[in-house]
Structures are given as C-alpha cells and as structure tokens.
C-alpha cells in the first residue's frame, strides 16, 4: 500500500508542476517551489534468438527526489516487465505485471566535502556499469553477464562514502552494510539478507580504477551455496568521443569453491557524432552453478535524437550459434 503514496504524490504534484517551470526532456520537473523534483523513464525492447522472440514494455518508472541542506532523498518505483509477449517454438505467451516495486528508496546525509552517509535501498556501489544501470543511460540494450552473476545489484542497508581530494586525483572509499532482508526482494538478482561490501577507487583526469570486494548471503531456498564472496576490478577511460570500460571478477562460496570462476567484459565505445554511437563489447564467463561457459561478442549502435532518448540496435555472436541474439530497444528519460 505504501508504494502508492509516491505515485499519488506524483499525480497530484503534476497538477502544480507546470506553473512557472519550463520543462526540458531528461531534467524532470520541480514541484512548485518545493525542494522536490519528479521524473521517470520508460523502456521497450525486442529480442530475437533461434525460435524465440520477445517483446517487452520493460521499465515504467517514476522518480521523486530532492535535497534540503545536507540531506537529499530519492524514491524510484517501477513496473518491471509491465508487458511481456514471447513466442517460443511456435507457442505465444503473454504476461503482465501490474505490481509496483520499489527499485530505490534512500536518504543521503552529506557530513562534509569528503564524507556522506546513505540509508535505504540503493544500487550496489560495485564497478561502473551498476551505478547507471537503466536502458536509456547505458550503452547497450543488454547488460554484461557479470552484472547479473557476480554481486547483488541492489543493497538495502547503510553506506558510507569517503572521497579525498588531496592527491593529484581523487581517492574514494565506500563501505556498505546490509544485515536485513531486501526491500522488495523481487527486484534483486540475488534474494539476500546480508551484504557487506567494500569499494576502493582512484580517479584522475580521464581514467579511473576500482576494486570491489564483498560477501552476501542468499535466502532463496532454491539456491545452493548460499554464502558467497566476490571480488571485482574495473577500469574506465573516458574522452569526449570515446570510452573504454572493463570489469572482471570472480565469486566463491564459503568453502572456497568457485561459483563463478570468472566473469568480465571489455567494451569500446565511439561517438562519431553526438547523436550516433557505436559500441563493441567482448564478454567471457564461466559459471560453475549452471555449468555454463561462454565467450561472445556484442556489437551495438545507439541513436540519440536527443540525449534522454535512446534507440538501440545490438547483435550478439556467441560460442554456440543457437545463443546468438539480436536486440532493438527504445527508451526515454523524463
């Protein structure tokens, strides 16, 4: 029931939001003169594989956020896989999901120029891809496999972030603690009740490097090896017209058996025009739980008529041709 309050607020606030505010796509709208802003995003995608097609209205999301002094706050509620139609081996199935889920809900208190504290449900501070995971802002329709299997995408707990600017670059340290069930656990790739994580990063000019390590405990009864440890290295180089991004990690259980021997990718992106971007990504993983190993190439193209609109095409070439896949997606951030 509580999930409807942000939506109700959104509808009512829209009645006042237009008064003196000029709206720009991708920037949200202020609610009157309150320290509160509303926005959202939508994404639709199509996937084709051998004898398989799916059409989805995947994300239908609403954002409410703001700040007052040292305190800032954000709420994101979403319909996930709002509509899904699949055709597999000649059989068509349709599913709708009209349950609102809480994707993020947190408050952040900024202590000073170096330190902030966060509490609630937030994107796990792991790597770079997971920090901006939504379709309209990421570079391909698909996500790298490593982001699904190495670590929990979301953490419901408390987090402290420290940044030191005394070096030529910026040094960052993040510690996150979850010792409770997830908020809306359907929305996480792992259903957990514990997640302890550490992040170390260094950023200088155009490049940055990050190390993540953590432990999480799965409560999903269908999963064996419930205690998992992970480690991941990430690096990024970003210039005005290109980006190179790489992440690689490993995961073990509490008996030091690999659950994922390795999972990683290296991705190159080139913006040959502000509206036209090409992406190439090589991924490799070996997941011991499902005994699956794969190396594959992802080739993508994104057209952004305006930055908050992304029209994407993507083709994946896998080790086994039956896994090859094509994607098309359309997404908008309001």
């Amino acid at each position, binding site marked *: 029931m509580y999930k409807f309050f942000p939506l109700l607020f959104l509808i009512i606030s829209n009645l006042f939001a237009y008064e003196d505010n000029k709206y720009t796509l*991708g920037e949200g709208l202020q609610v009157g003169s309150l320290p509160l802003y509303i926005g959202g995003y939508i994404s639709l995608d199509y996937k084709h594989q051998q004898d398989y097609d799916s059409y989805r209205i995947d994300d239908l999301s609403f*954002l409410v956020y703001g*700040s007052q002094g*040292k305190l800032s706050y954000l709420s994101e509620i979403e319909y996930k896989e709002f509509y899904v139609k699949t055709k597999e081996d000649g059989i068509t199935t349709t599913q709708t999901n009209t349950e609102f889920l809480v994707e993020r809900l947190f408050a952040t208190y900024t202590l000073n120029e170096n330190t902030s504290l966060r509490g609630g449900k937030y994107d796990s501070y792991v790597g770079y891809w997971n920090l*901006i995971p939504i379709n309209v*802002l990421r570079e391909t329709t698909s996500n790298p496999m490593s982001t699904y299997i190495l670590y929990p995408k979301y953490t419901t707990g408390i987090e402290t972030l420290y940044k030191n*600017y005394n070096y030529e670059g910026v040094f960052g340290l993040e510690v996150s603690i979850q010792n409770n069930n997830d908020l809306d656990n359907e929305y996480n790739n792992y259903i957990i009740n514990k997640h302890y994580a550490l992040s170390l990063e260094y950023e200088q000019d155009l490049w940055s490097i990050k190390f993540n390590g953590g432990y999480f405990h799965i409560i999903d009864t269908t999963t064996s090896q419930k205690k998992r440890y992970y480690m991941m290295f990430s690096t990024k180089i970003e210039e*005005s017209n290109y980006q190179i991004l790489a992440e690689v990690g490993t995961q073990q259980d509490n008996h030091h058996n690999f659950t994922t021997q390795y999972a990683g990718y290296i991705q190159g992106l080139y913006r040959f025009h502000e509206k036209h971007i090409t992406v190439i990504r090589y991924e490799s993983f070996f997941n011991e739980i499902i005994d699956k190993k794969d190396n594959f190439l992802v080739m993508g193209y994104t057209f952004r008529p305006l*930055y908050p609109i992304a029209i994407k095409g993507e083709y994946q070439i896998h080790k086994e041709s039956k896994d090859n896949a094509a994607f098309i997606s359309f997404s908008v*951030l309001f």
Partner: protein
Amino acid sequence: MKKILFILFIISLLEAKEYIVISSKTMPTLTKNQLKRIFLKKIRIFNNQELIPLNLPTNTSIRYSFEKNILQMSRTQLKAYWTKKHYLGVRAPKKQKSQEAIIKFIQKVPGAIGYIEKQSLPDNLKIVYQWDEK
C-alpha cells in the same frame, strides 16, 4: 580620427575578456579543480556550508567560456552528465537570468557562488577565481 577609432575597435576585439568567480567574503579562494567539482555538484558542502553554484543562461559567452576553461566539458558532454545526474537525484546548478541576478543572489544567500565579468564586481563580494578568455 576615424583611423584611431577603427584601431581602438580592433584592439578591443583582441583584448582578453576577464571573468571572475565570486562568492561571499567568507569563501576562501578556490582552485580550478575545486570549482569544477562544485559546479558539477561533486562537492555539495564546503567548510560546513551548503554550496549553491549558479549558472548564466546557456547562450551567454561567459557560460561558454566557463564550460570550456573551468569545467573543460562540451555542451554535449554536460547534457549527458546532467541527464545521468537526474537519474541519481542531483540537479544542475540553478540558472540566473543575468549577471546582476547572480550578484543579487550571492549577496542574499550564503554559500552561493557564480561567475561574472570582472568589471561588474561589487565591493561586498569576493573573487575566488579568475580567468581570461582570449
């Protein structure tokens, strides 16, 4: 006489424009890196004071110069940056209509910081950074 006026006109075009970043007298002088972090909202609190960076309208020459020399980002990069920040719950700096509006805002609101032409500096505000646009 006409020749002198013409030469003075050419000289005025070639002279560097002097721009300044201003704030209240309690704000210390800042480095370019600090300014960049403030205007990209990577730092929100400084010396226990909430910072309120201010921008001029997008089509002003000062703003272009500020983005080029201080933020070192193109308009396209900034659009992408602030769109991502919107998802993360962070707003771009407040926009003021004119340099006079920036001055009035800074004079009234603690923690406010903005950029103007040097010749417009009022006595009760402080220069925290200065740059030239040739």
